[in-house]
């Protein structure tokens, strides 16, 4: 009973973080067809921005939306500077891997320069711990487990029930036809990056509340998010979400029974197996498209 509960909480918690990260990657891939290797540093920068705002003793309920807004702007800028000028190149996927990696390195070192190498920690969303059926859980983790589905649900509703969301999904499928119905394709590309960066920032705030922050804190979540989107398939926004929770549970089970040391190896073993059996991903169709 104890083990099951611990795995349940661990899985939900990890899954929430992975989902928050992976959804942004998937959104950018499905709208623009590029992989954003700056996604991890967007998360890290989000955490640092939130830390700075908190350090100015701004209350958390303002810090959260303010950070997401600032990071949405940063995401937009990132897109305008290292992605948009390259659109239309034949080898865009590879070129953008390199430019976003370069941007990631710049941001990482910029953060190191501004805030220094000393580890920092963000305030938790809700303080304290609680006991659920005899298992101790922090309120911070419970808040994350509860907030994430709400945010992801809102994103799903936005993509599926609003005209702007419809436009985002359409751009992914046919750029020429999108232009011909009068969509502002460049603005939609910017919007995809802005949303992705805001969600990554939120993940950063989640993470900064229970682990020490450092300029390289985004590397591991980016890797996990990549695994999640490969595993879940990129054809929709719901695929990566389900995959994120699956992988979260897989990690929780592995680290409970085999220890943290073996978990990454097992995770990659499953991923490799997945790529051999169903390369388009668990929920993936063979084409690109959103939701």
């Amino acid at each position, binding site marked *: 009973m104890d083990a099951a509960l611990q795995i349940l909480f661990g899985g939900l918690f990890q899954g929430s973080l992975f989902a928050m990260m992976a959804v942004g990657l998937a959104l950018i891939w499905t709208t623009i067809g590029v992989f954003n290797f700056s996604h991890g540093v967007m998360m890290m920068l989000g955490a640092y921005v939130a830390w700075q705002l908190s350090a100015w003793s701004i209350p958390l309920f303002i810090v959260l939306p303010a950070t997401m807004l600032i990071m949405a702007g940063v995401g937009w800028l990132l897109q305008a500077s290292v992605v948009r000028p390259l659109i239309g190149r034949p080898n865009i996927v590879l070129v953008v891997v390199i430019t976003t990696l370069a941007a990631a390195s710049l941001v990482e070192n910029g953060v190191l320069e501004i805030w220094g190498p000393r580890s920092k920690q963000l305030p938790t969303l809700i303080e304290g711990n609680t006991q659920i059926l005899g298992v101790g859980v922090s309120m911070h983790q419970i808040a994350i487990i509860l907030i994430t589905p709400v945010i992801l649900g809102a994103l799903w509703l936005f993509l599926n029930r609003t005209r702007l969301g419809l436009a985002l999904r359409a751009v992914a499928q046919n750029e020429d036809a999108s*232009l011909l119905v009068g969509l502002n394709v460049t603005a939609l590309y910017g919007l995809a990056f802005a949303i992705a960066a805001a969600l990554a920032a939120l993940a950063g705030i989640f993470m900064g509340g229970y682990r020490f922050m450092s300029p390289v804190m985004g590397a591991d979540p980016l890797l996990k998010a990549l695994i999640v989107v490969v595993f879940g398939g990129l054809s929709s926004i719901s695929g990566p979400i389900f995959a994120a929770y699956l992988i979260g549970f897989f990690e929780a089970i592995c680290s409970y029974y085999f220890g943290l040391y073996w978990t990454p190896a097992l995770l990659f073993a499953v991923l490799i197996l997945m790529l051999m059996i169903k390369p388009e991903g668990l929920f993936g169709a063979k084409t690109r498209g959103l939701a």
Partner: protein
Amino acid sequence: MSGLLEITNLTAGYGRIDVLHDLTMTIGAHGNVGLFGPNGHGKTTLLRAISGLVKARSGSIRFGGADIANQTPRSIVGLGLVHSSQGNRLFPDLTIGECLALGAYTPRARAQEEANRERALKIFPKLGERWNQKVRTLSGGERQMVSIGTALMSNPAMLILDEPTLGLAPKVKEELCRAVLDISAGGIPLVVVEQDVEFLLELSQHLYLVNHGQVAAEIKPGQTMGHADIMALYFGQ
């Protein structure tokens, strides 16, 4: 001269290659316009230049008095000059209903969304029956209907159709031809590229033969044109 599309000395192309050379034509002075000619001689490029998908390197395109050469496709659609994209691609993972909603994206079209949807469904009743079906599951003819229906949702003041019957079975083709005639009868001036010249003649009395990126011949209303004459235009005397 509202509603008139005037193209003057247009040069356009891709990369280092010009496809259209100094092309001049006037559309809308004598009702619908039909464009025909061999494949790969610039008909589609011409349409793409008109709707802003391809840059005009020189020359001018005027629609209803405004210069639209090198405007964004968005502002051109906003003026009511609507280009129905070739239906075989469209938006594979959107439903018919979503495609039509997308057609009414510009503010100009959104104001008329209800009326335009009714009109589109009247012309293509099939779209209503399959409202929640994804485009990728439709046949070629049905996709073409979605494509034209989406264009109708953009509230066109002039509608450009690029080979609406390309690759369709004769029966479906018949159905689409009738729909296109219906749209024309509803009062929307059309610009149609079509290989089937018989159909073009039924639709329009003003035809252009586009060859080597230029207007090779213009047939104005009153000039009768038989099968033999068209063959002569294609293949020489």
